[in-house]
């Protein structure tokens, strides 16, 4: 017993930065003004629903040389419940973790024999919004696949790594100083609970990678290319860091 406690203490001591305990995890939703919260709460006022409607149309449309639609294999979109909660997941064919957008494109190229959608294209965001929405109000449950471990660790290292001309790390803002102000904005804990999000600043729907790109540019670091394994590693770590939090896709953010 005493030895086990010793190992536990050693593990705690070697952990680089303090991860936010589950009870204190707080969605960026709670840092927004009441009007933006109301926008997210009402499906009629949430502009992301326009993409969801488009996603429902795409879901039933046959595509590619195989002439199959999403519906032909998966059935109703409602059956995709909890799928978005466990992505990024390990892909056997790619031999590395892939996120939900990449999984949708994998389905297109491998099963539908159709060309992949471009990252951040309307179609890809529409389908990922539709799939993500099915997991609304469910707790985030990252995949327990042991093959993911090294990638999640790489993501955690990237999160703690100082970078860019401002020489900042993600952790310095989002672990150490969340709740405080950066200019007029409250620094959120950076939990990916609502992606893809409709961001008022973008006037459009966007993926988590677009949001990460935004932060990297803010730190004056060079953003990765869309779909880069570095982003997927960060996404993996962020989902693990947000484990147990309620999923709210598609979210609205200022």
């Amino acid at each position, binding site marked *: 017993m005493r030895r086990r406690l010793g190992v536990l203490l050693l593990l705690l001591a070697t952990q680089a930065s303090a991860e936010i305990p589950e009870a204190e995890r707080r969605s960026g939703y709670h840092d927004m003004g009441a009007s933006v919260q109301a926008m997210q709460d009402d499906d*009629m*006022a949430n*502009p992301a*629903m*326009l993409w969801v*409607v*488009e996603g429902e149309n795409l879901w039933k449309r046959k595509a590619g040389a195989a002439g199959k639609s999403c519906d032909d294999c998966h059935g109703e979109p409602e059956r995709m419940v909890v799928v978005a909660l466990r992505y990024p997941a390990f892909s056997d064919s790619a031999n590395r973790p892939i996120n939900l957008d990449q999984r949708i494109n994998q389905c297109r190229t491998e099963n539908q024999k159709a060309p992949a959608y471009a990252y951040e294209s309307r179609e890809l965001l529409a389908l990922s919004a539709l799939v993500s929405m099915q997991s609304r109000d469910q707790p985030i449950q990252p995949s327990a696949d042991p093959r993911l471990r090294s990638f999640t660790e790489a993501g955690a290292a990237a999160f703690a790594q100082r970078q860019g001309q401002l020489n900042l790390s993600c952790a310095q803002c989002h672990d150490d100083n969340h709740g405080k102000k950066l200019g007029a904005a409250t620094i959120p804990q950076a939990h990916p609970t609502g992606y893809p999000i409709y961001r*008022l600043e973008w*006037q*459009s729907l966007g993926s988590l990678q677009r949001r990460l790109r935004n932060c990297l540019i803010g730190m004056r670091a060079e953003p990765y290319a869309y779909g880069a394994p570095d982003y997927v590693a960060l996404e993996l770590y962020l989902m693990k860091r947000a484990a147990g939090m309620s999923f709210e896709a598609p979210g609205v953010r200022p």
Partner: protein
Amino acid sequence: MSNALIRLPRSVKKGEVFEIKTLVQHPMETGYRSGTNGTIIPRDIIEEMICTYNGVEIFRMRMSSAVAANPFVSFHTVATESGTLFFRWTGDNGFKLEETARITVA
């Protein structure tokens, strides 16, 4: 291709005031922003939205560059009789979108 979402109560009592909510997909490009090489991105907005209730115009709105992308518009009307609400959005580059919704007045 554009989508519109319309929500109104399934049924209302005669004489009752009810709310109509609309959300339409549109970039609402202002015409004041510059793109790559400093060239101005041409204006692309919805100019006008109208709503008729059994053929009678009940709402008309002129939109400008100041309206955000994917405009959400809500307004009220008095329930007179069962029938059809017809919506039309028109704008730059020949943009035209039409939708109808049924209303039952009990």
